[in-house]
């Protein structure tokens, strides 16, 4: 009877799926805590995400060297969602229900996060998401260790205004993060008295490689007698040709500075930065941050990758903070049970790499300093501005009419990701 | 257009012209056929024989000139499927049959029947059709290959199958392009017999190089050269024509 059922399963082709399952179960027998790593190792996003997989492996190795967690060793489970968004959901499901991981560190793009979100909700697991994003979200099972718009975009604009910028180009790749960020910035700029004709908004497709027209447009927009700056939410690959075109067309940072939210040390590694000196980026971490923690982290990273040319960047620091917060929360709860960790993690603090101590807020975002860096000719950033204290991540922007009344608080008794302060109800506008 | 012609001619071509990239393939071609007539068209390479057939069947549109079918229908506005439905069947120089279909299916698809998508989707083969296929198979001597894939036929058998398919369409006019190419002498003579047998009931135009074959057909011959008719008449008449001799021997 049992045999025949097995045969039946094999005949259905489900056998192979079952085989992966049982293969994984075999590992699960050993006394380890599993940590899922869900970053694309192939496809278009591999360029950014592979590093994050490496940093997770390093952090887990370090934790194990310190004796593991709750007396057990940590075991990383790495899968490749291949920059394929539905595959992210499938792999998340596999990590949680087949590999039985206690927490997952992963995703880069918003769409990949959106894709896995229902899975984490349904199977009640934990996701640590390390990348700056558009906000407008707070989910019980997700911890946002990257920047929300108020932790990156708004301080950057403030800095430029201080530098005398009066005319703004908001240039971005056409997807949800730039769209939302630019909506927020547009509102913010208008609120602070910038006229509509002094704002130019431009969107380009993913992987846009011919920037001649747009750089030309920026130049002519900048020749209206007012100090002009570009706020760039241009994503990933498109940045290299954009900066090359800027450099070659002679747009200098002293004339029209470009402040970018998606360009970090990794992206600059592919460009000759000499013509770009002085262009800016806003992040919560720069490799050039002069602190002992950072120096140690970079040394470990070089040792781990056996390559002292590898750079570090902001999402890596986000994973560093997120992982340490998870470790502390698990230690505090005494278990890796997601419900217990969700309860214990709010308020947990972990040192960041820029000399401060970040804390997990009730809305599952963390406090971070905001740094503005200028590109140097060696591919690094020189920090020219730092917020005086840490800024708490705001899940719901105050500059979008519909999200203004919303707040998130996952502690008892509210336990709500979109509480409407006007109607006093959980669940949006009510 | 005179009344006389419209009543008499099944196919009437007048002053056709066609050029490809400056090269005049057809240059003032006029030609007409009566119903049931057997006609051979000869001419050296590049004389415009195939292009003429292309124009009759709607594959190529002439730049200038008239092409009338049955005195009423302007052929220059019809495409291949239209002309086939009007009753013009065509055999290619290279035998073209449906190789992954059986011999029977090849004929079945050629049989005169509704050709629309819906009709074919719901069509069932009737006994009468099966019987007709049997007759055709006998005519082209392929009775014992009925269930075989057409791909497995010999070259000559494919030629005959294609002729069989033409007949299955029951056309008023058959255009046959070099039917004897690649055939043994015996097969060639048999093919001539076959075509002669068909003529009368159907009008037939045979394009051929093989003079022996043309002689065996024993019909009126039209000689094409540089896209125009240079002689027409019995085989003896045209072979005596100086122009024809010059064209054939002069190069």
């Amino acid at each position, binding site marked *: 009877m049992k045999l025949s059922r097995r045969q039946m399963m094999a005949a259905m082709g489900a056998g192979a799926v079952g085989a992966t399952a049982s293969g994984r179960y075999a590992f699960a027998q050993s006394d380890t805590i599993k940590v899922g790593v869900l970053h694309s*190792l*192939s*496809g*278009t996003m*591999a*360029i950014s995400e*592979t*590093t994050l997989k490496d940093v997770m492996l390093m952090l887990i190795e370090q934790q194990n060297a310190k004796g593991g967690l709750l007396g057990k060793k940590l075991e990383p489970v790495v899968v490749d969602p291949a920059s394929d968004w539905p595959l992210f959901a499938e792999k998340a499901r596999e990590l949680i229900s087949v590999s039985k991981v206690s927490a997952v560190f992963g995703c880069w793009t918003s769409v990949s996060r959106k894709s896995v979100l229902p899975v984490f909700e349904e199977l009640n697991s934990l996701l640590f998401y390390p990348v700056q994003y558009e906000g407008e979200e707070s989910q019980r099972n997700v911890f946002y260790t990257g920047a929300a718009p108020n932790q990156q975009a708004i301080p950057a604009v403030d800095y430029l205004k201080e*530098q*005398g910028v009066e005319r703004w180009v908001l240039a971005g790749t*056409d997807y949800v993060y730039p769209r939302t960020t630019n909506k927020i910035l547009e509102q913010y700029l208008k609120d602070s008295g910038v006229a509509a004709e002094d704002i130019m908004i*431009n*969107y*380009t*497709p993913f*992987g*846009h*490689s*011919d920037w*001649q*027209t747009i750089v*030309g*447009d920026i*130049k*002519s927009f*900048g*020749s*209206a*007698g*007012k100090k002009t700056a570009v706020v760039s939410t241009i994503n990933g*690959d498109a940045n*290299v*040709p954009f900066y*090359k*075109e800027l*450099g*070659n*067309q*002679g747009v200098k*940072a*002293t004339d029209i*500075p470009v402040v970018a939210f998606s360009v970090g040390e*990794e*992206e600059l*590694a*592919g*460009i*000759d930065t000499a013509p770009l000196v*002085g262009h*800016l980026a806003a992040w919560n971490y720069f490799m050039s941050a002069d602190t002992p923690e950072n120096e140690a982290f970079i040394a470990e990273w070089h040792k781990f990758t056996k390559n002292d040319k590898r750079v570090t960047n902001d999402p890596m620091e986000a994973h560093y903070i997120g992982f340490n917060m998870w470790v502390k929360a698990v230690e505090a709860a005494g278990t890796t049970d997601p419900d217990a960790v969700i309860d214990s993690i709010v308020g947990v603090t972990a040192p960041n790499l820029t000399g401060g101590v970040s804390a997990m807020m009730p809305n599952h975002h963390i406090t971070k300093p905001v740094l503005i860096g*200028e590109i*140097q*000719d060696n591919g690094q950033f*020189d920090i*020219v501005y730092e917020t005086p204290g840490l800024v708490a991540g705001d899940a719901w922007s105050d500059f979008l009419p519909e999200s203004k009344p919303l707040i998130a608080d996952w502690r008892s008794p509210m336990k709500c990701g979109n509480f409407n302060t006007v109607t006093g109800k959980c669940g949006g506008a009510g | 257009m005179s009344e006389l012609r419209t009543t008499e001619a099944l196919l009437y071509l007048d002053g056709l012209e066609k050029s*490809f*990239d400056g090269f005049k393939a057809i240059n003032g071609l006029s030609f007409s056929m009566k119903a049931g007539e057997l006609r051979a068209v000869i001419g050296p390479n590049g004389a415009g024989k*195939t*292009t003429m057939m*292309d124009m009759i069947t709607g594959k190529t549109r002439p730049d200038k000139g008239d092409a009338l079918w049955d005195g009423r229908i302007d052929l220059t506005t019809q495409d291949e499927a239209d002309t086939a439905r009007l009753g013009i069947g065509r055999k290619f120089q290279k035998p073209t049959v449906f190789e992954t279909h059986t011999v029977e299916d090849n004929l079945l698809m050629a049989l005169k029947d509704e050709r629309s998508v819906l009709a074919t989707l719901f069509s069932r083969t009737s006994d009468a059709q099966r019987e007709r296929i049997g007759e055709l198979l006998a005519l082209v001597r392929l009775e014992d290959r009925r269930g075989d894939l057409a791909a497995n036929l010999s070259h000559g058998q494919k030629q005959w199958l294609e002729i069989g398919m033409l007949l299955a369409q029951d056309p008023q006019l058959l255009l046959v392009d070099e039917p004897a190419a690649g055939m043994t002498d015996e097969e060639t003579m048999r093919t001539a017999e076959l075509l002669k047998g068909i003529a009368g009931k159907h009008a037939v135009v045979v394009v051929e190089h093989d003079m022996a074959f043309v002689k065996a057909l024993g019909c009126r011959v039209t000689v094409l050269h540089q896209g125009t008719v240079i002689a027409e008449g019995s085989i003896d008449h045209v072979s005596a024509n100086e122009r024809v001799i010059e064209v054939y021997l002069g190069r």
Partner: protein
Amino acid sequence: MALAPLACLPFARLARLASLCIALLCAATSAQAETRDIIARLANAKFPVVKQVIEDLAAAGDPTVAPFLRKLRAGKVYWRKSDRAVFIAEREKRDYALFDPITGAKVDQVGRRAAKKVRVNNAIRSAIDAALAGLTLSSPKVETRLAAAKQLFADRDASALPALTAALAREKDPTVKTAFEDARAAILATSTAATPSERVKAIARLGERGGSDSLNALSAVDAKAPADVLAAKESAIAEIKRSLAVWGAAENIWQGVSLGSVLLLAAIGLAITFGVMGVINMAHGELVMLGAYTTFAVQEVIRVSAPALFDVSLLIAAPLAFLVAGGVGVAIERGVCRFLYGRPLETLLATWGVSLILQQLVRSIFGPNNREVGNPSWMSGAFELGEMTITYNRLWILIFALAVFALLLGLMKRTPLGLQMRAVTQNRAMAADMGVRTGWVDAMTFGLGAGVAGLAGVALSQIDNVSPNLGQSYIVDSFMVVVFGGAGNLWGALAGAFTLGVANKFLEPYAGAVLGKILVLVFIILFIQKRPRGLFAIRGRAVES
């Protein structure tokens, strides 16, 4: 210094002269001491202090400080923690070599942690640029004076006006003189201190000068200026905008041609493998990528072993890229494609598999990140043609694309290999009968197409990412070009690439980059309906059967 004549002078005079010299030297030294005092304030200075220091240096007007300012701008100025002295520093292995800020003499070498950088930001760099412009107005070098004039034009700093006027009076070089006058006009036009008539004259001058920087200066004329000044401003702006519109169209064409040259390079190899051989090579993009990575590897080697050769790195990389990509192409042809002739769609599948393998291979060897490929100096920057900015890299890529095209055309038309290629394409069996080694010709043709893809990679490395995804982003566009132009025809690829490039660039300003691209694709789809075999189809009976 003229020491030799001194020796033959009578003693008394010599003594007098010596005392004069000492006095002068003292004056110089005291000026220098003042400069040093100002510079010393840079130790551990915040940005506003640094800015003030620069302004003070500019006000002191000592031109010998210019090199120091340049070093400061480049982030090479450090202060020693032990005594807060300020130096120019150069990295020497793990240490810093410290140089005197004025004389440039080496004075010390300290550990990495013993000195700290004087930090600069954009505002400071701008201030330095302005200061340098003021200090270098009387520089002996023409270029330096021109640069100073340009900077003053952009800054429109009224405080520089007296120095500028003085420099203008001294100036002999006509070009520089014009530039000074332009800068003066820009300052006067926007200065509220100038008289209205002066301003109107200055504005008129700017209007005649034209260009977007004049527009910039004119736009900065404040709205509270007298009516006649404002009227002059409006008419001047209108005039400039008119000429800019004309130049804008020219610029569109140039950008379209440039985009077309990129498309041509990406597609021309495909025109050979796909057009001539009928092989749908989905790995074409990856061959382009291999070319780009070859360039990267060459530059790496040069960086390490022979930095002097950097400017010729592309010339070295081009033949290597051709060989690498061509070699891989021959391997693909011999290993995969030759078994699939006559089944073009199967080659699509197999080469798709090859493309996945190549991508992953490069990812495993070079890592998934972008790799830096530098522009040699002759491909950096831009020049102005009227109101158009033409960047050197794009200009060279256009030239390169046309050269590759011409070479290929010559190869196909005039060499035995080309003849054999065409023979095999037109009638494989007959070519084989006539003694053409068809297998060898196939391999060479495919290798040629692949090699050209490698060349495209060298060019693309100059404007785009060098990452394992490089090829993927060009493959669809390349197919569009070949199909639009008409497969099997090099001229078709040329016409197709430039048509699509220019069309794209003309649509972009109106429809935006995304919609523009969509419209071009829709246009291609519709165009193929009209001409099912592309722009330069080989027509006639032979092709159809």
